[in-house]
């Protein structure tokens, strides 16, 4: 994180109510370009609601969203995507039956004009796909390889590479590692690191403290719709993070009874 830079996105005092349920009760988070900002919290803490507000799915009941210093009102996810906020979902990102190259350019197909007709520029698409995949450390058999043959981690990586290629300034990763094995998780974390170095702001949602500490620059913990503050890398220990997520006392008691393995 570079403190001289201005934050790319500022979520100020965001509150979101669903009927009588208060999902978010005034959460403030700043995200800077080139940082990996980890958003931690247990199930039901409000992580999903928070990132859905950021990506334009929900409108905040109260609070402001500043993007590049200007206040934004996203009507729907399309607005957020156009502004440069991309979300990579754990599922629903790739189509297994289609080739990597077709998936990569889905919705953004390059075209070349031949006479009056516009055709899908497969050569360009294949070339870019292979190049982007190589950058991310995935060796494809060919651009026509079906996404279904890729592992879960590789699919996440393709989705991330795609979002970055199409100009995402803020990349929201919704639990990208929760369904992955150890090695695949490592690959996704390595991808996050690469993307961050390109100057993209990464918002990494997880409830795994170890995954967060592996790549995170700053950590914000949500608990019951409130933030318990943001801490810098190196200023917080895994145990402290874990305690904050669980709301403190109960987990300490539980951890003692389990011999410190949680």
């Amino acid at each position: 994180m570079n403190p001289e830079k201005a934050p790319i996105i500022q979520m100020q005092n965001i509150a979101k109510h669903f009927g009588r349920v208060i999902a978010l009760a005034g959460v403030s988070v700043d995200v800077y370009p080139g940082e990996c900002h980890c958003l931690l919290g247990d199930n039901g803490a409000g992580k999903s609601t928070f990132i859905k507000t950021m990506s334009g799915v929900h409108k905040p009941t109260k609070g402001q969203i500043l993007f590049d210093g200007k206040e934004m009102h996203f009507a729907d996810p399309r607005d957020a995507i156009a502004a440069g906020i991309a979300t990579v979902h754990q599922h629903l990102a790739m189509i297994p039956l289609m080739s990597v190259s077709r998936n990569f350019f889905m919705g953004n197909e390059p075209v070349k004009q031949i006479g009056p007709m516009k055709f899908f520029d497969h050569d360009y698409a294949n070339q870019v796909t292979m190049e982007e995949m190589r950058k991310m450390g995935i060796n494809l058999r060919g651009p026509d390889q079906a996404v279904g043959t890729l592992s879960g981690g590789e699919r996440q990586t393709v989705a991330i590479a795609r979002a970055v290629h199409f100009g995402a300034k803020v990349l929201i990763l919704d639990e990208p590692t929760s369904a992955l094995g150890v090695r695949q998780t490592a690959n996704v974390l390595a991808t996050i690191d690469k993307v961050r170095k390109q100057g993209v702001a990464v918002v990494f949602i997880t409830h795994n403290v170890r995954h967060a500490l592996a790549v995170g620059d700053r950590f914000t913990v949500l608990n019951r719709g409130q933030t318990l503050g943001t801490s810098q890398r190196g200023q917080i220990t895994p145990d402290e993070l874990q305690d904050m997520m669980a709301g403190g006392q109960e987990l300490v008691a539980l951890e003692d009874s389990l011999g410190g393995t949680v």
Partner: protein
Amino acid sequence: MTNATQPAANADERIKEISRFRKALIRPELGGIVGTVAVFTFFLLFAFDSGMFNSQGIMNWSQISAQFMIIAVGACLLMIAGEFDLSVGSMIGFAGMLIAIFSVTLGWPVWMAIIVTFAIAVSIGALNGFIVVRTGLPSFIVTLAFLFILRGFAIYLPQTIERKTIIGGVGEAAEGDWLAAVFGGKIFTGFFQWMGDAGIIAVFERGTRKGQPVVDGLPMLIVWAILLVIVGHIILTKTRFGNWIYAAGGDAEAARNSGVPVDKVKILMFMFTAFCATVFATCQVMEFGGAGSDRGLLKEFEAIIAVVIGGALLTGGYGSVIGAALGALIFGVVQQGLFFAGVESSLFRVFLGVILLGAVILNTYIRRIITGER
């Protein structure tokens, strides 16, 4: 962490090198190509001297195959987009009947009857699609409803207006009509005459047409079939819209997340299917010079079977127009071939059922290879 974050530098040792055979296997057209070769080999061996492979014989099964192809192209693109249309057969009967009523009963010029019929049919296709994407109901049910609705009208309209279920006289009305010729005419007549003169194809030995070739031109029906196959194939594989068709059928939600206008794609495919059915109907009306209420019966299933033989998955997202065209060719050749070989024609249905089952099982196997499922 340093070790683990190293990207795998070389090919993953856990993935077996894919064999050439398996690579060929995951081409959707494979089933169609193998089937076509098998069918032609069979009939060349067992029915060669039955007249199946002289000019009339070839024209005979080519026309039947072309009929199947026209509706298979529409069904294929729609199935890849993840939907079915069971109203194709009824649409054929209904559209043919509209042309006959407009041109004969109402006395409109035939070109106007054809254009208005196309407009009505494509609108009904759009309605089908609109109901499917709006309600989220399976297209199976929505188009099943239209199967009955359209067939009902195809019987009701001529019954009420003319007190019969067949309306003839379109042939006379279409005499000299420019648009009717686009569906009912023949091209390359000079070339066929030349082939007749050169002794390549059979000519009439006597009578008023002595010296003229028995097959005197390429029917527009076949031209339409080839045209639709080429256009369909190019749209599917070479355009961005084609990518959207695959995406809409592969996973509509993921496609939407990527900004693909899924609903628009699906509605357009329903319209295209209706368009193909109307092309079929118009060619048939021009050929027979009239329309019948029972035209196109069961055609929806034959179209779907041709598409499945061609390698498309019933669940959408995967398939090939060329494959569907080969499926249609297999159909036409077998249906007419059994006739030429003197086999009882009811066996054709047995063949259909068997080949359908075989194709579906093969496709499921291929799907597992592509997606790496076990």
